[in-house]
């Protein structure tokens, strides 16, 4: 039976940094995940807050031009989202240690993502019904099985 729905995967900030910054451990799997959006069977989501954080980190490294190239690509091929008030409420109620991460998770949940890709060890321990938390490497392994 043909599958009707596209897989939805949310990209954490560290995945975007993996792609941009030289010498990161998960660089290749993260790039493959981004490329999977071109296969038209995976719908990728990221949050605008991630790009704001990255722009701050890269502001002294002449990285703005490269960040804008990535952002332009993401805007053209993926969904760049912003959390709403309900995501913020849910993040507050979750009681999680890192509020920023909780907002991203709440937003990923609200848009019914099947996967949340991250290399954050604390997020990888999370359990939410219907959403799997995976490292970029594990996500790519699933596609290669």
């Amino acid at each position, binding site marked *: 039976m043909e599958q009707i729905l596209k*897989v*939805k995967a949310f990209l954490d900030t560290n995945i975007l940094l993996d792609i941009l910054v030289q010498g990161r451990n998960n*660089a290749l799997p993260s790039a*493959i995940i981004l490329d999977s959006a071109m296969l038209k069977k995976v719908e990728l989501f990221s949050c605008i807050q991630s790009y704001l954080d990255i722009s701050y980190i890269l502001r002294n490294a002449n990285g703005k031009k490269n960040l804008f190239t990535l952002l332009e690509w993401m805007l053209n091929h993926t969904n760049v989202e912003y959390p709403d008030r309900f995501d913020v409420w849910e993040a507050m109620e979750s009681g999680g240690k890192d509020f920023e991460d909780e907002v991203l998770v709440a937003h990923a949940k609200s848009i019914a993502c099947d996967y949340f890709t991250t290399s954050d060890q604390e997020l990888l321990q999370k359990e939410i019904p219907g959403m799997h938390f995976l490292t970029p490497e594990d996500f790519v392994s699933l596609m*290669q099985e």
Partner: protein
Amino acid sequence: MLYLAVWIICYTFAKNVIIMTPQFGHRVQTAFRLDPVLLERLKRQAEANHQSLNAYVELILIKASEPVLPKIPKNYQVSEEIKDLFGCVKLKEPTQEELKNDPKLDYLWNKYLR
């Protein structure tokens, strides 16, 4: 006879209250409007598969809606478009003093790059 009646009442109560309640049975009562021809076809196919209509339709819906990742080869080559973005920023680790003077950078650096 009385014992049998009591047993039936207890069984019915348990079935309705415990088993059929969504939080125990993990099923929610719902309704769909279907084409009668389609419904008949589903009934026939469910019977042929020795399943109830409910179980058969649920199985079809699970199969149709489950997320299936696209398959890629082990030696998958990243497209040129992505290669252009790949590792294009050389990032120098800030000094302790720089991090001390910039708490926001300190927070972000520790969160994402340590």
